[in-house]
């Protein structure tokens, strides 16, 4: 696989050299594939290493094809889909603006999501553990949880004092239900034998709740947290498209209003990179929290 990839890379360099935008295209492919190549060097599993090299080869091919077609045949339409070289140049020059947008978006996302995570987990634990709370809350969860959070946007904007507060509220609602429902079902899924085992140890209430119930429900909480994060991203972008004056969603919306598709693509790529980075980080946290599941030799 290494040889195939290196041959592809070599061909891409030769093609790039005979084109007008040779060095920029080469630089772009080098940057994108370099990271994957570097990771593949440290990857222990041969299958994962092959997957990384395959991915890198595909990126090289796609970008090279795009650049070649755009430069020589103006396909796809360079106004709607500017060639990679232009996008890359603009990406570098727009980076300060993008980072400013990222800060604003992360503030909204972080506030709404953290609020949803903390309240969803605490309430989910109580609902999952107490049969009484479970029965009392079931109708509310069934009705309110089924409502798409996006419908709250008009009310949030009308009732809350600022756009930030409205966005945080909508993101909170979007992430809250998956976290709450998954936490409660996680508690219910803890085998009764484990609960009996814990009860026989006469643990302190705090240890019982956080050491047994919370940890026992953790696999399901992680699923809820991942789902909540996906909803948060969707709602953040939706909220920013409506009334924001900064942020990544606003960046894309603002420049698409002026038909500046170079910046639109830059914004989309940057959002993709941010989401990938956050997903990577949360996956690492999840793996760390659930590492005990990975060692089954039975």
């Amino acid at each position, binding site marked *: 696989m290494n040889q195939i990839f290196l041959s592809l890379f070599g061909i891409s360099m030769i093609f790039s050299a005979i084109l007008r935008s040779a060095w920029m295209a080469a630089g772009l492919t080098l940057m994108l594939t370099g990271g994957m190549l570097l990771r593949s060097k440290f990857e222990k599993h041969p299958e994962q290493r092959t997957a990384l090299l395959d991915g890198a080869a595909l990126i090289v091919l796609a970008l090279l094809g795009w650049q070649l077609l755009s430069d020589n045949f103006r396909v796809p339409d360079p106004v709607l889909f500017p060639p990679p070289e232009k996008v890359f140049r603009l990406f570098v020059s727009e980076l300060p603006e993008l980072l400013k947008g990222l800060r604003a978006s992360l503030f909204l996302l972080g506030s709404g999501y953290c609020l949803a995570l903390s309240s969803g987990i605490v309430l989910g634990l109580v609902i999952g553990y107490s049969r009484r709370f479970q029965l009392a809350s079931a109708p509310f969860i069934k009705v309110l949880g089924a409502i798409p959070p996006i419908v709250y946007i008009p009310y949030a904007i009308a009732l809350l004092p600022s756009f930030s507060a409205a966005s945080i509220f909508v993101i909170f609602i979007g992430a809250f239900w998956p976290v709450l429902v998954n936490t409660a079902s996680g508690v219910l899924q803890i085998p009764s034998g484990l609960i009996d*085992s814990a009860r026989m140890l006469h643990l302190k209430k705090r240890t019982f709740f956080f050491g*047994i119930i919370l940890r026992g429900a*953790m696999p399901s909480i992680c699923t809820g947290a991942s789902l909540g994060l996906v909803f948060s991203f969707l709602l953040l972008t939706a909220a920013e498209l409506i009334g924001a004056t900064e942020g990544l969603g606003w960046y894309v919306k603002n420049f698409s209003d002026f038909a500046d598709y170079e910046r639109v693509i830059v914004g989309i790529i940057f959002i993709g990179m941010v989401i990938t980075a956050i997903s990577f980080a949360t996956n690492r946290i999840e793996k760390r929290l659930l590492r005990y599941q990975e060692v089954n030799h039975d």
Partner: protein
Amino acid sequence: MIELSNISFRYGKKSILESIDLSVPQGEFLCLLGQSGCGKSTLLRLIAGLAKPSSGNIKNENESNRCAVVFQDYSLFPWMTTGENLLLALRATWPEKKTAVLRDIAQKYLELVGLPHCFQQYPAALSGGMRQRAAIARALSVDPEILLMDEPFGALDVLNRAMLQDLLLELFRASSRRRTVVFVTHDVDEAIYLGNRIVVLGSTPGRVIADNHLAKTKPRLRDELFRLPQTRELQNELLDVYRRDTWQKLPATKREANGGGI
């Protein structure tokens, strides 16, 4: 001494246990024998205090009232290493002791059950037999007066089961404390090998249908024990009690279809 007087337990309208009178003196190894679903695990949960009887009384007249349970599955918490599992129990029992001291105790008990290198390992990394050894280590580490075991070797292969039975007996006999053990099983041979008293529970609803005290001088070696004619007699007697109980529960038409008592 554990004293159960006139214990009944109902689940909804269904009667699970009925009129159970049983006293277990200190130091006794009692095997609760019965078919699946006869309520023996429920009785163990009642003794452990994990459930309350619908009627009757359970008196526990031991000094410290310290009681440990080993279940067939789910005794160890999978998200904690084996050592942490022991430490959790030790910390709950002796909160005043320092962690270093408790770690030493945990390590000592893991060595006792033949798992000296498993302190840092998660239960998922251990085999079924090793997990049960660790569960026994955790139960014994808190120095309980009463040890309750709910078919702890039921899911193990024959070889592992025999090894763990030997280990359990060894630990029970070697202990300086006169520990009371209530061991639930559906295996007649296991009950004969381990117990010094065998109580058989009949089914639907569960009630005591036989109570056998074994000779104090019974041989310690498995081969020797099962070569004795008295042991074979006891096996047959217990199996006969089982059979009679099942027979009585069968509807009359089925009894006839099965040979009408031939």
